[in-house]
């Protein structure tokens, strides 16, 4: 058996517990949302120690980014949090624009806000579906997918793809929204709040659901901050932090919405927070639809899709055609140097992009702050001393997606 000498346990270890039951939950476990692996040390059904093991979906995105231009990397952001790809597109573009100092036209800002909120709804719907399925309520799963399908249809209409959208581009969005899609979206947000009520009637008044979620996996406000939680997982613990409010990007400072805050930080509060966020997202989309201004959708100084690594070589001063000798010099200083960190509120939490630029067309180094990775790190603390069935509920409530965690 694995020894307990790796570190001191917070759980008191009685005599005879040196032989704990070890279970490797994952990476092909049905409830670990992809390829998360948890090494569990268990005493009966009680988890004494939980050791998350990430990296099974590692694709080296951060290294790949160093060899691609900013525009070339954009499609790879779809594969981060593939459940709500639009939000990743927006986040990446907002960060690159901050680095390249590009002003995005207002219409594009609104469209981005809209698609980011649509992405949040798709992300939260998938979370609710799988979370309910993990706890055993399987009907909610299909109800959620019904609405998620409507949004994916809209994504298809906007960008041509349902999952890997690559809808935004640096400096704006790739194509304008159609009137038909906007009509459909307006109908959707009109109807959606009643659908949320439908999910809630299925699970929120269910005694078994309440028993399985209330008081399970409690994270105090301090603990949540220490563990680096963001997004609904942090707000459920009572910390009022939302990137959309505190460092507004896109058009979030022009729309009215509330940030739902929890109290206890248990699985139930995290569930409630996300359910309220669904309502707020619908509200934001409705305001965006009303306020959507006319105008350009791409900034004038947006880089070309085939982004040059450097501007074409310039004739050196003094040389002229007349002399028959032209000396060309490369011009590397097209892009600003320095570093920038910009984050957005993804559906899982704060999704940040950090760039170090040496003035070339590629990032010298890129880092993605993915909320899922940090939440998975927190699992070790949250899962200590709970039952194995609660581990599943906690993984579900933290809403991790492995594409983003392992990037």
């Amino acid at each position, binding site marked *: 058996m694995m020894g307990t000498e790796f570190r001191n346990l917070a759980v008191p270890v009685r005599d005879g517990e040196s032989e704990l039951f070890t279970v490797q939950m994952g990476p092909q476990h049905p409830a670990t949302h992809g390829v998360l692996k948890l090494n569990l040390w268990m005493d009966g059904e009680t988890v004494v120690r939980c050791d998350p093991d990430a990296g099974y979906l590692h694709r080296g995105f951060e290294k790949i980014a160093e060899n691609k231009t900013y525009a070339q990397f954009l499609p790879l952001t779809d594969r981060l949090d593939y459940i709500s790809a639009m939000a990743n597109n927006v986040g990446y573009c907002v960060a690159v624009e901050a680095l390249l100092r590009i002003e995005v036209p207002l219409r594009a800002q609104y469209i981005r806000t809209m698609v980011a909120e649509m992405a949040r709804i798709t992300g939260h719907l998938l979370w609710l579906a799988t979370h309910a*399925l993990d706890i055993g*309520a399987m*009907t909610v799963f299909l109800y959620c997918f019904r609405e998620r399908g409507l949004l994916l249809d809209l994504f298809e209409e906007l960008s041509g793809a349902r999952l890997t959208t690559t809808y935004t581009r640096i400096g704006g969005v790739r194509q304008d929204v159609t009137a038909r899609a906007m009509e459909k979206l307006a109908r959707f947000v009109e109807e959606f709040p009643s659908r949320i009520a439908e999910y809630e009637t*299925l699970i929120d008044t*269910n005694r*078994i659901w309440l028993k399985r979620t209330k008081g399970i996996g409690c994270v105090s406000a301090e603990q949540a901050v220490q563990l680096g939680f963001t997004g609904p997982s942090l707000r459920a613990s009572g910390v009022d932090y939302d990137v959309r409010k505190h460092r507004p990007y896109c058009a979030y400072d022009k729309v009215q919405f509330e940030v739902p805050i929890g109290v206890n930080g248990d699985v139930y509060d995290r569930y409630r927070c996300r359910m309220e966020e669904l309502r707020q997202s619908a509200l934001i989309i409705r305001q965006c639809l009303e306020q959507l201004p006319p105008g350009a959708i791409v900034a004038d100084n947006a880089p070309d899709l085939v982004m040059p690594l450097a501007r074409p070589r310039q004739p050196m001063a003094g040389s002229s055609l007349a002399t028959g000798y032209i000396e060309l010099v490369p011009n590397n200083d097209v892009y600003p140097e320095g570093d920038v960190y910009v984050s957005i509120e993804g559906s899982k939490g704060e999704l940040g992009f950090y760039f170090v630029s040496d003035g070339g067309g590629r990032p010298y180094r890129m880092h993605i702050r993915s909320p899922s990775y940090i939440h998975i790190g927190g699992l070790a603390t949250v899962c200590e001393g709970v039952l194995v*069935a609660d581990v599943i509920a906690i993984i579900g409530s933290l809403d991790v997606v492995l594409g983003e965690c392992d990037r």
Partner: protein
Amino acid sequence: MALVVHMLILVGVVLLHVAYATYFERKVIGHMQVRMGPTRVGPLGLLQPIADGIKLFFKEDVIPGCADRTLFYAAPIICLVAAMANLAVLPFASGLVLAKINIGLLFVFAMSSLASYGVVLAGWASNSKFSFLGGLRSMSQVISYEIALGLSLVGVMMMAGSLDLSEIVAAQQQSRFGIYAIPQFLGFFVFVVAMLAETNRAPFDLPEAESELVAGYFTEYSGIRFSLFFMAEYIGMLVMASIATICFLGGWSGPFAVPHVPFFWFAAKIYGIMFFYFWLRATLPRYRYDQLMSLGWKVLIPLALLNIVVTGFVKTIF
């Protein structure tokens, strides 16, 4: 000879029932979940159970390297035999029973306990951790709920004055309400909950909780051995639904007699209960292990005991 024919017919009908109970379940849950259920194989997907059966039969029978082979082979057979043995004592209509024994109810209890033995052995013999946990859960669940199940039926035994299933139905027909579910409502409630737990169905499907234990005790089973467990589970559901029908819902008696089909009401009631099983599965989340235990010991068993006391008082006074 007649006995053998009777047995063969019974087994054939029940296996067909198992096949089409899965179809019924998938259709019912499908429509509850805004989808269609099976539609592709045959008209309305009616051949789907046959296709599933053929698939399971021809699948590779994988046995894990570290498994205890003897027990691994024996476990599904124990489960299926125990479940099937119950069928012998069930009266489907007046006189339509294979073995009319005077301890029919006890026999059913004995056999359903034996079936859980198969589950525990499967969990142990697989030598897999998830199976092991599933087996452990099953063991504690069955021990807790067997008691509640037995106690809930004591009231019925007291009212009918017999353990013979045919006589329980006959006594029910003579009783004031015609069914025992009304005077024995407390016992009926405890029985229904314990019945769900006994057959490992939602919301008490902990031993095979697919999101926690992958598939629980039969994680390592595949092909025909897996389908033996599957059949045992569905026959178990049928048996428990039959016991509920016989002991609480008046057996084969109904509001009017259906000519030529003496078991019509029996089958209708059983399918009503099966529908209830599927309905719960589509609606309810799963209990947690310790919550299940506390429900069994702190709620169901006291209620069942109370029911016995009340029944005894009423029987003595009136």
